[in-house]
């Protein structure tokens, strides 16, 4: 009788742990599944959406540099040197017709994430 109780107890404990694990996994998955980007250009589009959500008062005429300045004022813990490099590369691509010098949109997605949107990098084809 005692061994049946013990088996039941272990079974319940295992089921409980599994349930919690699934729950935690679910939460992480939900957080990460909000946005995906296959390129830096796409990541900037997601960042734009995140910016508009975070700063509804931001005028339609904002530029990336103005937006970055505003985020910087929030003082988030981000690698600004790296972000500056990504932005410079993106500007050269967007306005100068150059190849994208950075192909990893990770920093931009992290920034979008800081602004309250879930984001994760999905490597493009």
């Amino acid at each position, binding site marked *: 009788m005692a061994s049946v109780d013990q088996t039941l107890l272990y079974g319940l404990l295992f089921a409980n742990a599994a349930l919690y694990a699934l729950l935690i996994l679910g939460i992480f998955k939900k957080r990460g599944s909000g946005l995906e980007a296959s390129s830096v250009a796409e990541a900037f589009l997601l960042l*734009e959406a995140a910016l508009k959500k975070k700063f509804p008062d931001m005028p*339609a005429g*904002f*530029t*990336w540099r103005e937006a970055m300045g505003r985020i910087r004022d929030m003082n988030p813990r981000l690698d600004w040197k790296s972000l500056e490099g990504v932005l410079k*590369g993106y*500007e050269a691509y967007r306005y*100068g017709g150059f190849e994208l*010098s950075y192909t990893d949109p990770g920093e931009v997605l992290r920034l979008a994430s800081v602004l309250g949107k879930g984001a994760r990098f999905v490597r493009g084809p």
Partner: protein
Amino acid sequence: MEKVPGLSEDLKEKVLGEIRKVVIGREREATLLLICLFAKGHVLLEGVPGTSKTLLANAFSKCLGLQFKRVQFTPDMLPLDIVGGFIFNMKEREFEFKRGPTFTNILLADEINRTSPKVQSALLESMQELQVTVEGHTEKLPSPFMVIATQNPLEFEGVYPLPEGQLDRFMVRIQFDYPDVEVESKILKRNLTEIDLGGVREVMTPEELGEVYKEVASVKVSDEILDYLAKIAQETRTDGGISLGASPRAMVQLVHCARAHAVLVGRNFVTPDDIKHLAQSVLTHRLRVERSALLKGGSPNPQAILTSILDRVKPPR
């Protein structure tokens, strides 16, 4: 990404360094002068007397290594005092053209709005077509040719407002505000000894300027940026608060300025930030506020109206 050679950035530092020897706290204004020089435009310096407009123009001209002339505009001047005219040569017994002070590289037109519209208009052809025509005789001006004009605010006594056509020929208007306490204190300290413009060295050669012109001409402007500019122009023409919007010439000059600015910061393409950075200096002196809009509570300030336009026109992102 292609990086432009550092010549312009280097020249900027040298020029600003020389100007700082005599003018304090006018880096922004000096940089705009440089942008205008690199963009082959003319500048209007506006501010109350005693805010170092003429001193800055003098120091700027001194470090360029270009021919420089100064004309103090007065109400009794005649057009020939500026562009020149035909005088009778007794020896040769014929009329010959005597060149006026316009025939130079940098012309400092001091207090331009103290002279009559007739004399102001005499500069129009020089500024736009870089030539002078007197009685059917046309002469090309030296290259480069840049007018740096100063003017007092229109509320002052004895001034003739520049007509719209004349204002439109100035690529940039630089407004000189009073310095803040910290800068004013430095100015006072600096003026305890006599200011010596002789200490300002020539730090740019005409050849270097020619190289910068080539750099500026090679700066890329994407079609999307051009569309962005066209939308801004349209907004200035349809905004209810403005009766006279930006002319096509104004927008062309804004592009040139943006290219020069890009070169100064080491880029060879124009971004929307270049446009927004320079729009106020290039456009506001050409905008006329609609008076009827003022009665309805509209802004009397073209700067504020332009800010609102720039806020609502979406740049390429």
